């Protein structure tokens, strides 16, 4: 990875923000390890519960635990603490499968930011813009959430904060038209990065998903040579519905990556593992607060290390 990604101390920040998760899972696994002298059915059941509590999801949990159970039996592992290493490895495998690390430093770049309501799209755009600005890039923002009250104003505040121009029309106007304008403005002003905000939409609303497809098509049509990323913003507090979100958004606009927000809370963020295991969409960044600096690149190795260290 190049560019701005080098500038943040990924490991430290991520570790800090994950400390609660880490303490949670690790403590409970330690407890388990010391409690269970022998590996029996109860042990695996408890292991299941630990993962489920971390929002890893029933299906993924079952698969993980079954895999481990088999391996334990096959390799005749008698110590429960080795199981921890096994589990770590399995989670890492799943996350690695998804995150191929191909977030490319190719410009010009268009980022289309999508997701359900309130997950942190607009805030994340502010943070992303800051990262690119700090990297010396010319950044434009498209205010294509024309639906929610004061969404345009919110993006404008972020634009002022980080020094990025906002392309907008009035509230209620066609978001496709805003993106169209923004693409042409980006071309004529030779912007390096265009980041498009969109209205939050529940993935089961057909019409709104159609609208999103249209926006996506406009970018492809108007600026085919740009390097496009469609990023789904997921709230770490979300439970199993996040899988349904990822699935449906992927079907509609071919998500190229996930940004996982609100990892500064007590939610465990285990859903990422479920999503990677089922859908193979890499997690690109994680949000760890409301400040402009609170965005870090996601790294599978560090993520799992931070969970278990």
């Amino acid at each position, binding site marked *: 990875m190049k560019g701005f990604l080098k500038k943040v101390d990924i490991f430290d920040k991520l570790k800090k923000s994950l400390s609660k998760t880490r303490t949670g899972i690790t403590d409970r696994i330690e407890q388990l390890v010391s409690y269970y002298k022998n590996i029996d059915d109860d042990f695996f059941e408890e292991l299941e519960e630990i993962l489920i509590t971390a929002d890893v*999801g029933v299906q993924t949990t079952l698969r993980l635990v079954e895999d481990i159970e088999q391996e334990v039996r096959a390799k005749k592992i008698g110590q429960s603490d080795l199981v921890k290493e096994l589990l770590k490895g399995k989670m890492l495998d799943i996350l690695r499968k998804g995150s191929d690390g191909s977030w490319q430093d190719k410009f010009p770049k268009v980022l289309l930011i999508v997701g359900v309501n309130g997950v942190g799209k607009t805030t994340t755009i502010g943070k992303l813009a800051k990262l690119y600005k700090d990297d010396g890039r010319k950044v434009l923002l498209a205010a294509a959430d024309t639906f929610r*009250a004061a969404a345009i104003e919110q993006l404008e505040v*972020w634009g002022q904060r980080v020094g990025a121009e906002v392309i907008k029309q009035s509230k209620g106007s066609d978001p496709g038209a805003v993106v169209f304008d923004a693409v042409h403005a980006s071309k004529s002003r030779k912007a390096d990065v265009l980041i498009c905000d969109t209205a939050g939409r529940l*993935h089961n609303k057909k019409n709104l998903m159609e609208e999103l497809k249209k926006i996506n098509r406009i970018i492809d049509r108007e600026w085919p040579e740009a390097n496009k990323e469609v990023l789904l913003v997921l709230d770490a507090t979300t*439970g*199993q*519905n996040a899988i*349904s979100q990822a699935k449906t958004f992927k079907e509609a606009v071919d998500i190229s990556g996930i940004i996982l927000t609100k990892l500064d809370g007590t939610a465990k963020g285990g859903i990422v593992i479920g999503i990677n295991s089922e859908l193979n969409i890499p997690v690109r960044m994680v949000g760890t607060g409301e400040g402009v600096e609170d965005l870090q690149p996601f790294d599978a190795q560090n993520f799992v290390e931070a969970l278990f260290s």
Partner: protein
Amino acid sequence: MAFEGLSEKLSRAFKRLTGKGKLSEKDVKDAMREVRMALLEADVNFLVVKDFIKKVSSRAVGQEIMESLTPGQQVIKVVNEELTQLMGGTLSKISFSPKLPTIIMMVGLQGSGKTTTAGKLGNYLKGQGKNPLLVGCDVYRPAAVEQLKQIGDKLSIAVYYEKDNKDVKSIADASIKYAVSHNHDVVIIDTAGRLHIDEVLMEELEETKRAVQPTEVLLVVDAMTGQDAVTVAQSFNDKLGIDGVVLTKLDGDTRGGAALSVKAVTGKPIKFVGVGEKLDDLEPFHPDRMASRILGMGDILSLIEKAQANIDEKKARELEKKIRSQQFTFEDFLDQLQQLKNMGSLSHILDMLPGIGGKKLKGIQLDDKQLLRVEAIINSMTIEERQNPNLLNSSRKKRIAAGSGTSIQQVNRLIKQFQDTKRMMKQFGSMDMKGKKGKIKFPF
């Protein structure tokens, strides 16, 4: 499969119980393993699930099986009853203060939907003849106050805010005085989203609460919340003391297990649910509906009730009304098809409806391609046409066929299917509700 619905799971679990006379410990244990997994899949917190399973199991084991029910139905009856009870039993409302104004404080995590809900609640109370005042106390998120102002404008509800003041307590304080002098009988205070572990911001809420002594502190919770819902709800309740919960974004496809978690750990009632982005998309909470949503069995549960020896007439009439009151338009039709598709096993469900075998609806058996075509056709209709199918003369049909890339025959077929369905809905609504017991075939 990851997205297998609870109803299939339960059916599968209970199938194994069929034919036995009495619920043995093993029967119940087997079934409960599936119920446990299904509840977890619905995001109910695992501790809550554990507790629940224990309770239901002990109630179910050894139970006399009612004459008209199979053992499986007997178990689901117990599961549903316990779930409904846990959800809060009866419907509760906003309490009004005898001393004006009534003060409602909205609190919750970032992005849970407080501002929109504040507006919706204002609108709801205005509809009840109140004169609400909205107060913008989210001084942190960019344009949050602006958002509340725009919502207030749209609803013609007054909004109190102080442009350059960041002291939330003083804004809240001043808003109450403003309300009193301007004859507002309800004050709804919107606050900034915050993490339950953010001590500084939690302290700010406590201070504000002490200052204005709200009648109701409402915790706004996103229905899609996962296992962490218990931690959040418990923290807010411990630190601040909440009086009720508003569950938002229920118009999504989440099963909403968080509702159960929150209720279980706080004991506080869920008072309202948000069901859409429009400002009138706020509904009172119905514990029984939420229970069946989490269970994923909808009105089928009502049918079980109906199948019991002592049929509860009132409930049956309610069900009838529910079905009859559906002003059935093409939009509803599309909606229903989509919902059915999401449920996964259409024929399964249809089999359960009295008098409507899966066969009868063969015309609208769903595969994805068909659904897409149906969608395309309906999307090509004007809004008037969707609401009033009688408008569809041949030139309109021609236009619709062209617009949707289908043929006139396909459009005609859809119209016929729509009308058949409509007739059947009516038939279903009127049949069998007047005391006569229908033959109901259950899959488990």
